[in-house]
């Protein structure tokens, strides 16, 4: 087991180094001189220009610059935002919980509805129910979620007035950030109605963000369930006279879940990419909106640092899924 984990980590390290090269190159591929970009298009004193280049380390050869960049990364220094002059890392950590909260709720929604739909479809194979579920899954899978968000806002916020249009909580509440997760913080604060407000803000974005993972999970559950239902031990269980529900939930589901768990893990990338769109639509103050805002403000250190952090996150989660999969399924562990 220990060897297996070490082997997995060894595979990840070059990928991570590659990501740092990519992030480093990102800044250097921006057309134009970085110093000129920073001070604007004004006429420059050549002496000032030389000093700025030296201060930024831009007069050194490229590989030295990269090594300096790596050195700074190791100490957690991702540079400063050109707009707020705050460290990129600090901004990321401040906004990150909002994205995590949204993603977890989206994943919960996706897993619960996707699993249920997949199980029902597999057990009613070929019926109208199956066709409806698979049709919805195809639609969900193909959904332009930025439009889906707008439609849901139009329906539930504007026409029915059930949910707020944007943000994380009503402005009247001033919730101290303890954990950074609004749902938990509102409960801790004990303010009346704060939790309900946070929940009503969260529900639409979570549905929007969870739509594609839900469709993927529903498809995967169905096909994996169909596979398992053909097995001999299911026939045995049925022959023993067990109730159909027990056969499906206890005997079949447990084995059908193994590939589904992997798929859930692999959806983290989809979630973070979807967060960019979902957060933009709902003005959700997370890292997705932060990245897009920084791009339009040409705040390159934030773009560079943010992309590096998001990629690192995805690599780590995928590593975790790999290792967990090895724990669940020993065959993987010993495969080369």
């Amino acid at each position: 087991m220990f060897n297996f984990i070490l082997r997995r980590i060894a595979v990840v390290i070059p990928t991570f180094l590659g990501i740092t090269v990519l992030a480093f190159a990102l800044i250097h591929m921006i057309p134009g001189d970085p110093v000129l970009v920073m001070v604007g298009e004004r006429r420059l004193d050549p002496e000032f220009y030389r000093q700025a280049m030296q201060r930024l380390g831009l007069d050194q050869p490229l590989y030295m610059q990269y090594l300096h960049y790596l050195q700074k990364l190791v100490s957690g220094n991702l540079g400063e935002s050109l707009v707020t002059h705050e460290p990129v890392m600090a901004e990321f950590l401040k906004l990150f919980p909002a994205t995590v909260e949204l993603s977890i709720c989206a994943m919960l929604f996706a897993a619960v509805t996707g699993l249920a739909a997949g199980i029902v479809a597999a057990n009613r194979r070929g019926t109208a129910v199956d066709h409806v579920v698979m049709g919805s899954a195809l639609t969900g899978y193909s959904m332009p979620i930025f439009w889906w968000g707008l439609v849901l806002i139009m329906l539930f916020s504007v026409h029915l007035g059930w949910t707020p249009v944007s943000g994380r909580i009503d402005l009247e509440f001033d919730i101290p950030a303890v954990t950074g997760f609004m749902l938990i913080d509102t409960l801790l604060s004990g303010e009346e109605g704060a939790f309900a407000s946070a929940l009503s803000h969260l529900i639409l974005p979570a549905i929007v963000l969870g739509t594609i993972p839900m469709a993927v999970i529903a498809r995967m559950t169905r096909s994996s369930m169909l596979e398992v239902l053909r097995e001999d031990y299911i026939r045995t269980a049925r022959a023993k006279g067990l109730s159909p529900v027990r056969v499906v939930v206890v005997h079949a589901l447990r084995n059908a879940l193994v590939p589904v768990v992997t798929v859930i893990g692999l959806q983290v990338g989809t979630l973070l990419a979807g967060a960019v769109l979902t957060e933009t639509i709902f003005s959700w103050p997370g890292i997705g909106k932060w990245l897009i805002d920084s791009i339009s403000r040409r705040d390159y250190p934030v773009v560079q640092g943010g992309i590096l952090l998001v990629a690192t996150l995805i690599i780590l989660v995928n590593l975790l899924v790999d290792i967990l999969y090895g724990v669940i399924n020993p065959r993987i562990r010993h495969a080369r």
Partner: protein
Amino acid sequence: MTTPVQSANTAVAPEMAAASYSYPSPLAEFWASFRANRGASAALVFMAFMVIAALFAPWLAPHDPIEQHRDILLLSPAWTAQGQWSFLLGTDELGRDILSRLMHGARVSMTIGLVSVVLSLLPGIVLGLVSAFYPKAVGTAIMRAMDIMMALPSLLLAVAIVAVLGPGLTNTMIAIAVVSLPSYVRLTRASAMSELGRDYVIAARLAGAGKLRLMFNTVLPNCMAPVIVQATLGFSSAILDAAALGFLGLGAQPPLPEWGTMLASARDYIESAWWVVTMPGITILFNVVALNLMGDGLRDALDPKLKKLA
């Protein structure tokens, strides 16, 4: 290698050839199998209409896509109380005919899909074949590079690329092409690797075929099935990603009638004009669904082995 079996096969071959008149040609077989899939056939018809709309948009569209009818801003669709039949799907906030914009938008989206698929398909196939034929240093290096690109979700990587190159239609196509490269490389490599050990490849090699001939004439045609399927799915994700970039303001720029860009400006009319929001989104959704259905149909028709994985 397996000489006895091979010679046995060649001995049987003339009989097989004599009997083959009763078998359909591969193309006819593929077509029959594709047509048996109702969803895929419907999708094909829909896409045919879209292609016609895109190709002939300047002649078919009732209005100029960027002409502003200043006296009828935000006109609702024709079937509603205030609607006019000359503006079937209504007009947007600048009085432009939405149907005409969608039809011209089809040109933009089809172009993005086509160009970005070709731009990533061709280098993807070459890189995939090279990494299959030279698995040691070169192959490993290529696959590592692809792993790095896959570490970021495609939309985020596309956003990063556009952030560097600047927004616009051309850069959107480049970004999407770069982003979808790894899937073609991996797919080509995987199927080329499994073909490399086959007898016909070894036979061709023994017959003295050069590396290039082996790659492109011997192995590649037998790897094309999954790549074609992937290209169809790549087309649909290109349309989706391009629309997302346009929505974020990083893709095609107004007044170009790109579907995603149309939605970006529609956000302000969510309370007053539902059709401005609804129409472009439904168009994107229908196209992506149709392309995905076609991809599924192609996969089942080209490669029955993959059917189970659906």
